[in-house]
């Protein structure tokens, strides 16, 4: 029997607290704290600045935290290694996005 899924959420639409992000990603809280302190995982910019309200994390933070959890488990790397890996991953993703944009604009047969 097939089950109709009633709730499917765009990752980009999430608004999570720090503890919710830890729970959702499976990343231990101290490691998550290290990654946030190092700027490898960032909260969403808030209107009125950081003092305006509690920090909230969105889709980009969820992707980063989940990737960090995978790499920590699969490659046995520590928080400092994760900061470096996330920074490089971010650069790869930005370059892939640029490449996709450029390829889309090239005529067929040139790409």
């Amino acid at each position: 029997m097939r089950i109709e899924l009633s709730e499917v959420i765009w990752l980009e639409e999430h608004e999570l607290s720090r503890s919710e992000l830890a729970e959702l990603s499976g990343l231990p809280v101290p490691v998550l704290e290290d990654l946030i302190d190092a700027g490898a995982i960032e909260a969403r910019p808030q209107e009125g600045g950081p003092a305006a309200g509690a920090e909230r994390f969105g889709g980009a933070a969820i992707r980063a935290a989940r990737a960090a959890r995978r790499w920590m488990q699969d490659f046995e790397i520590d928080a400092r290694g994760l900061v470096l890996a996330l920074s490089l991953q971010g650069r790869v993703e930005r370059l892939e996005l640029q490449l996709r944009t450029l390829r889309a604009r090239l005529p067929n047969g040139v790409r």
Partner: protein
Amino acid sequence: MKFKDYYAALGLERGASEEDIKKAYRRLARKYHPDVSKEPDAEEQFKAVAEAYQTLKDPEKRTAYDQLGAHRPGEEFQPPPEWGTRFDAGAFSAEDLDLADLFAQLHAGRGRAGAARPMPGMDYEIAVPITIEQAYHGTQIDLDLNLQEYDEQGRLRRVPQSFKARIPRGASDGQRLRVPGKGGKGANGGRAGDLYLNISLRPHQWYRADGHDLYMDVPLAPWEAVLGTAVEVPTPGGPVRLRVPAGTRAGQHLRLPGRGLPRPRGGEHGSHGDLYGIVQIVVPGVVSDADRALYQQLAASASFDPRAHFVEGGR
């Protein structure tokens, strides 16, 4: 139960040291991890390597595994009778149990002897390639998964699950959807895992996507580009007439506002991306005598020099 050769999975002999096992795993994890590898079967390869490492890196599990002796991979075998006690699996049925699940519960079973702490279910992440038309209109996909979850006795089992998931309109390449609670079931009151759908767009014969904008080639005959025209072009929402201004050059982008992919829940710049037609001037491969005569007449009378800037630049 089917035998798996964990040493072969890591490319090792049976007498390999702990250090050898760690090194082999790191090398193969680097090669096959789905986050870094572009090999088509990377995920399956990595799963096999990780499964082997999870057992062989743990001295207790490795000893238990070694007691099985050597078999051919895939060969059916019967585990020793004392495994039922060792793995806290009771009178387990070896037929419906995977070797990896059995080793995974070696320590889980020990945990249950003390305070039963909640264990969240596993998250699952799967690639979902869809067409541009499916992204435009939204679609439903069938998902057949083999989820790892604990049964009422706390034993790990693989349970086939079939879902029908709705992909809402507005998906674009690289976007992700979360399906809460549709991963593996938790144990001891732990929350169920989640299912993550990684959306990718299949290559299309006409359209190329950049976010929610689409690009497509619009071939024009030389006289259409010079004189201007209106041409019918396909869009995901249906064909439209595109006005081509006189003097249009190859490579120019003709914008069709709002004819790209829809954005989820509208978005700040309107509900759809744009579609850009990239002009290509196409010449006929075969020219009739009459047409050739017209081209020759044009060549003789036209003053246009497309290479004038070469001469001007050389001065």
